[in-house]
Each structure stands twice: as C-alpha cells, then as structure tokens.
C-alpha cells in the first residue's frame, strides 16, 4: 500500500504543477479582459509563462478540476494527509473534496515535544482546522503522546473540544513514559467525560496508564452502556473494584476487557457471566505489585471462574505477571481457566509445576526467566496436561536437550510457535544442539531453530 500511495502522490503532484500554472494563467486572462490598457504587456508575459497545456484545456469545467467528487475522493483516499493537504490548495473543487466527512472519520493525533522526541508531531494548525471543521466527522480517534506532560495536556485540551461528535473508538496511547498520569486527575476527567457524554455511541475505549477514576466510568456507563464493546484500562490506579463492576453490570455488550488484578473480583466475573451479558471474548489481567512490599494477593474463587467459562466457553483469558517469585502464592492453587500466560520476570519451578497441574485451557506460555535448575519435569507435565498448548517461549531458563525433545515429542505438531534461546539448552549425553535441531524439526513437522544471539 505504501508503494501505491507514493506512486499516486507522485502523479498527483507532478500534474498539479502543470495544472497550477494553467489555472493561474486563466486567472490572468480574466484580469487582462478587465484592464485593456495593459493587455499588450500581459499577453507577452503570458506566452512566456505557458506550456503547451494551456492551448488544450482552455474550456473551464474540463480537465482535472472537473472530475466528479467521488472520483477525487477515491484518489484522495490513497494519498497521505500531507499530499492531500497540498492537493487541496489547487482548486475549489479539490478543496471541497478535501473537507468531506469521509476523509475525516479516522484521525491519529501525534503529540510530542520536538526538543525531546525523535518522532514527529501533528501540526498545530492542522489540529485547529480539525477541531473547527471536522470535529463532528471524527469517529475513530487516537492520541499518541510522548513522555512529556505537555503532550498529554495538549491531548486533553483537544478532547475537551470534541463536543459535537459521535466518536466510536477512542485511544489514548503513551509511547514512552505514562505522561497522562502527570495530568491532574480533574483536568483529565473533565476532558474525558466531554467525549463520554457527547458521543453516546462509544464502542471501543483504550485508556491504559491514565488517571481515569470511578466517577468518570459512571459517566461512561450512563451514556454508552448499549454500545460499549471494548474497554482497556490496565494500570489505571484510581479505579476501584466497584468502579469496574459498575461497567460490567450495565454494559452487557462488553466483549473485551483489560484491567489490573487488584480490581478483579468474584462479583465482576459473575456480572460478566450474567444471562443478559453477551459472550465475553477477551479478558486481559495484569498482575503487578501495586504497593511496594505487597506480597499478598486476594484469590478469586473457582466458582467465579467456572461461571465465566460456562457462560463464555471460547473466552481468551490472558494474564501478565510482573511479580517477585515469593508473591505467587495466591495463584494457580486451583484450576484456573487462563489461556495465555506471560511471566515478565522470574517464575519459580514450583509455580510452573502448579501451572502444569491447574491450567487445562492453556494455549500460550511465555517464561522470561526461571533459574538454574532444569525445567524438564515441569515441561513434561505441561505437555501432558495442557492439551491446548500451541505456543511457548522460554527466556533465561535451563532445559536439557533430552528434556526439551521429550516435551516437543509429546506436544507434536500442535506447537505452532516455539521459541527458546540457544543458550538455555543444555547438551547432555543423549543429544547435542545440532541433533536437537533436527529432532525437534522432525517432531514439529517443519524446520525449526532455537533463537540465537549474535556473537559480538
């Protein structure tokens, strides 16, 4: 698509040159008629200025300027914004087309401070134009901000002005530090609620790493409960379990939800499983120590999980763990229907054993680090009991070659993604690395290699 865009823009631009000259010449011709005393001089000037084109397209209303609107629109849809903007200053018709609502449904505001950011920023004039002329057309909006507070505040200012709009999708994305967290809660809440109140048909909201709070969620629910399908709010420290419960209770169309473990409750899971609720498709839970020194985590009852799975049998339950090894105690003591598990830091052998025992729905497992003891037994158990496992990634761990091959043999071709660092594998009496590569490839039914790091 990128190539096509540039070719199209090249054609548009090179012909624009000719067209622009032609248009200016026509204007000059008009002036000439009105000021006969200088006509001789201007005529002379004009012939020097022209190319052959002028002679061909001398009738107003023919040529590029008179293409039907829908054709120009189609062409514009291939152009990047910057080229479209240039094209819009060519003639009135093109200018009109530039401003049709269809071209302004989707916009991503990129806000960064030039002094500290590598990436470019949306031009303030353009932002002004959009707010003035296109706020009502916007439907799919996102804000990408860098790590400076000014950028986040600028995003909030724009949000506050989106009053007459019917936004369907809203995304607030921090590309580096969570700069929205530095905006005052009050400022953020008032900006966000402008959109919540006015849009009335919000279907997808991504507000991770923001200071959104319970009252704001209440406003969201009060205005959009029929349309809300997706809500991502990981790492939003001002939301309480009650706040999110309110969303689950009222928004029965909710299909995707992302939050932190501390606001997950039995009541929430039950609310998501109520009869009125549609099937939940995707639930993502980040498990992080919210307070320094926090070691205890509340447990979720097995019945609550069971209710959810009974209600939504195909639901993906994704859990990201960023805990110290000793903090895992509350987890996986009983059967847990998690499907995708990521351990961002170290996880103990014992925990991996528990996972093998209690996660029958497991599809994907990623372990960043473990320790210096081989994980052969734990992997074997996972192969045996997690029959749905199709993807696995092992980082800083230890596994013997034999153990790994046994694991792969048991899983067979269902492992579509298998990634392990070469240095993790311990050659043993039975297999070395080269043999491992061919054995594993055999069992997987495709060419497979461990991940390598360059020898610098």
């Amino acid at each position, binding site marked *: 698509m990128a190539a096509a865009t540039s070719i199209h823009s090249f054609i548009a631009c090179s012909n624009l040159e000719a067209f622009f000259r032609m248009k200016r010449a026509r204007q000059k011709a008009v002036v000439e008629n009105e000021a006969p005393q200088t006509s001789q001089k201007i005529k002379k000037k004009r012939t020097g200025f022209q190319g052959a084109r002028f002679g061909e397209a001398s009738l107003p209303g023919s040529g590029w300027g008179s293409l039907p609107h829908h054709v120009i629109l189609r062409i514009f849809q291939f152009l990047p914004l910057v080229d479209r903007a240039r094209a819009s200053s060519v003639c009135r018709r093109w200018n009109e087309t530039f401003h049709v609502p269809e071209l302004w449904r989707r916009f991503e505001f990129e806000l960064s401070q030039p002094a500290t950011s*590598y990436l470019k920023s949306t031009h303030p004039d353009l932002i002004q134009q959009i707010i003035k002329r296109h706020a009502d057309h916007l439907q799919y909006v996102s804000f990408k901000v860098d790590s400076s507070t000014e950028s986040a505040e600028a995003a909030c200012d724009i949000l506050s002005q989106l009053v007459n709009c019917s936004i369907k999708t809203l995304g607030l994305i921090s*590309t580096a530090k969570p700069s929205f967290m530095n905006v005052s809660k009050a400022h953020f809440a008032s900006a966000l609620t402008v959109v919540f109140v006015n849009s009335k048909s919000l279907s997808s909201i991504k507000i991770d790493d923001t200071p959104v709070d319970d009252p704001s969620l209440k406003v969201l629910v009060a205005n959009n409960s029929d349309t809300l399908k997706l809500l991502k709010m990981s790492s939003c420290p001002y939301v309480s379990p009650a706040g999110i419960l309110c969303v689950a209770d009222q928004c029965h169309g909710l299909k995707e939800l992302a939050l932190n473990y501390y606001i997950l409750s039995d009541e929430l899971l039950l609310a998501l499983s109520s009869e009125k609720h549609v099937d939940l498709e995707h639930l993502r839970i980040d498990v992080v120590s919210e307070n320094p020194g926090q070691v205890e985590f509340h447990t979720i009852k097995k019945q609550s999980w069971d209710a959810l799975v009974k209600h939504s049998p195909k639901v993906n339950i994704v859990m990201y763990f960023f805990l110290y090894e000793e903090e895992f105690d509350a987890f996986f003591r009983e059967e847990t229907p998690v499907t995708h598990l990521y351990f961002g830091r170290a996880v103990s052998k014992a925990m991996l054993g528990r996972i093998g025992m209690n996660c029958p729905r497991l599809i994907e497992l990623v372990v960043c680090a473990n320790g210096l003891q081989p994980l052969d037994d734990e992997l074997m158990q996972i192969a045996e009991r997690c029959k749905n496992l199709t993807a696995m990634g092992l980082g800083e761990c230890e596994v013997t070659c034999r153990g790994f091959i046994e694991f792969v043999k048991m899983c067979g071709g269902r492992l579509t993604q298998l990634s392990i660092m070469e240095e993790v594998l311990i050659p043993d009496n039975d297999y070395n690395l080269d*043999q491992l590569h061919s054995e594993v490839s055999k069992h997987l039914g495709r060419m497979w290699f461990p991940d390598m790091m360059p020898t610098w």
Partner: protein
Amino acid sequence: PFMTSVMNIGALRWHFLLQSLENLQKNLLQLGSCLLVIQGEYESVLRDHVKKWNITQVTLDAEVEPFYKEMEAKIRSLGEELGFKVLSLISHSLYDAQRILDLNGGTPPLTYKRFLHVLSLLGDPEVPVRNLAAEDFQRCRPPDLCLAEHYRVPLPVDLKIPTESLSPWKGGETEGLQRLEQHLMNQGWVASFTKPRTIPNSLLPSTTGLSPYFSLGCLSVRTFFYRLSNIYAQSKHHSLPPVSLQGQLLWREFFYTVASATPNFTKMVGNPICLQINWYEDAERLHRWKTAQTGFPWIDAIMTQLRQEGWIHHLARHAAACFLTRGDLWISWEEGMKVFEEMLLDADYSINAGNWMWLSASAFFHQYRRIFCPVRFGKRTDPQGHYIRKYLPILKKFPSKYIYEPWTASEEEQKEAGCIIGQDYPFPMVNHKEVSDHNLLLMKQVREEQYR
C-alpha cells in the same frame, strides 16, 4: 586523517592503530620495504604525491560502508584523471557482499539461519593469498628510503593523546598471529564456541580474543577461517558443524551484508529495517551509563573495563546494551553505538550498529522478552563477583551475596565493607523491576504496531 571525520575514535583505539602501523613498518623493513604514512585528506594527498613519486597503482580494500564506497569511487575518478590504476579487492570480509545479495534475490538475509543457508550455496570463501616474501618487493621500490623519517608512523604526542595506553591489547599483525596460535591451541575453545556459557574468567581481558585485529585489519579473516576449517577436518568431534566454530566470523559477515544493502544503517530514522521507537532523550542518564555510575555494579564494572581496556566480552556487551535501551533506561541505541564506537577497539560501522539494533530489539526478528536483569545476569555468570572486585575496587570488600546489589546490605555491613551506598558508590539509578516491566509492555506495543 579521514577516519576521524567518519568515526569517533577514542585514545585506546588510536594507540592500537599506531602500534599496528609500527608493527607493519617493522615487518616491511625486514622484507626490504618500508611503510610511509602520509597525513592529510586523501584527495589532496593523492593529487600531491602521484606525480612526485610516480605512483602507478593505488590499492585498497573493497569496503561496504558508505563512506568508503564513496572514497573508492572518488579515487577511481582521480585515477582516470591523474593516470593511475586502482585495484580494490575483497579482503576485509570473507565474501563479496554483492554475491550474497544476488543469491538472496537482491536483499540481505535478515535472519542468521537464512544467511547461513545462502552461504552454503556460495561454498567456502576464497583461500587467503600466500604470505609476502622479500622477492615480492623487488619490483616495488619505495621512492626514497630517507623519506622514511619524514613519513614515519605518528607518535601519540603528535595526535595529542596520552603517551601510554593502559590497555592490555597490543596492536599489530605479529601480536595478532600469536594470539591466533594461542586461540587455536586453547583446549577449551571447542566448548566455548558450541555453548556460549560464560565462565567467570572469560570476562577478563581475553588473551585469545581476535576481534580488534580483524576490525583494524591486522589479521586476515580468511586465514582464520581456513585454520578453523583445518582443525575441524582433523577433530574427532565430527558431530559439531563447522558453523558453530566459525560463528564469530559469520556473524561479522552477516552484519556486513545487511549494512551494505541498507540505507541509513546507523540511524533509526530512515532505516527501513529498524523499528521507529520513541526513545527518551536523557543526557544525564546517558552520561551515568557511559561513566559507570549507574549504581548497578555489574553494569558499572562492564563500562569501566570498556573504558580502561577497550574490550568487553560479548555477553557483557549484551548486558550493557540491554540496560541502556529496551531493558532499563529506554535511551536510543544510537547513543550507545556512539559510546561503543569511541571506546571499543573492535568497533566497526556495520557490526556495532547491527548489534545495537539487535540488542535493543529494533531489528532482526528478535524475541524481545528476555530482558537481562543487571543483578541476576551478573550473578549467574560470576557468582563470586571476581569481575566486579577487579574493576570496581571500591566494592571489593562486600561479601558475594551483596556485591551485585550492595544497596541491599545493611548500614552496618556497608560500613564494614568500607563503602556507603549513596556516598562512596551511587544508589541504583532506576528501580529495575519497575522500569523493565514497563518497557516490556512498551516494546510489545511497538511491535504490534510496526512489525508484521
């Protein structure tokens, strides 16, 4: 000299280079020839000397890096103008990168395995040429032997650098060849190349390391390649593929190949293979990393060795690079690359940039999930902390259980070790767990947007 305009060369590398030139001079004298070093901008040097010395041929290594490619083109046109022949040959790398590109459909292989596959189609590289003998110089006389004094190898004082280099690495072909023999004789080399598990000693200045000699042209990569091949042919471990022995050379080749065909290879912006990531600009934090004041002994010891000696083990490079970029500080790999360029003896346009992109997960299909913990990784490699004690003597009295994280020791224990954290040695500059968690998710986000 032109090199300074392209690469940032630190004092240690100058010393190494000067030593190498001295060595070359000595070796040439023994064969009845000599080395004349002319300082200045290459174009004007050629213009001045072609007539003066009746130069009929200029020879150079064919290079992939853009600056050198341009230089070669300019020299060729000068050759046409001033009437001398230009001969350029592939010697800095094993293969002609263009042939690799051609066999891969015009683009460079972006995974190592694919690269090896293409090489297998090419066959072995050309054998190294035979050694020079005095006879070879019969037809090639220097213009006037008494010029030798005027065009001698510069001394450190001429280049305004300190007179002594404290680095244990000495430049020159002679030294390089000795190391090569040592390297091949070393009993443990088979193990160390099939399984890159570090043993604590491998972090210390390597007596068998060869990378600076390849980088500055003191040793021929093809010579090394064939010596390794011979050993493989004779060894009993026939189950090991030669690839694992020549890994160091082939990785080098891999990066040369990608660099030769990628515009803006040493930058993020405008580099087609590099993820566009919103790294932080933070001069103060960069400075602390560069000057070994991060507060993490493992990282600081690494950066200290780098500054003092100009060489660190490749796993140490991984740790330092990960810490600066996607692991902890989220600072651009370009900054790290510049620091390495200045301080590493074997810094090289293609390899340095390529590795930095790899380790910051900016390119090369890299599984980014493994963030090296600045405490755990060091502990795993060298549990007794010998490396830390050597390069950060202020910490040497800490018992092994604290030496990687001295801030966890009680005030009593710190007093006993004669080092108060926050005073004699800095506090850790980031909370590793917090920042690395956040960075892992950030990287995932970037990946989802830009990759695939």
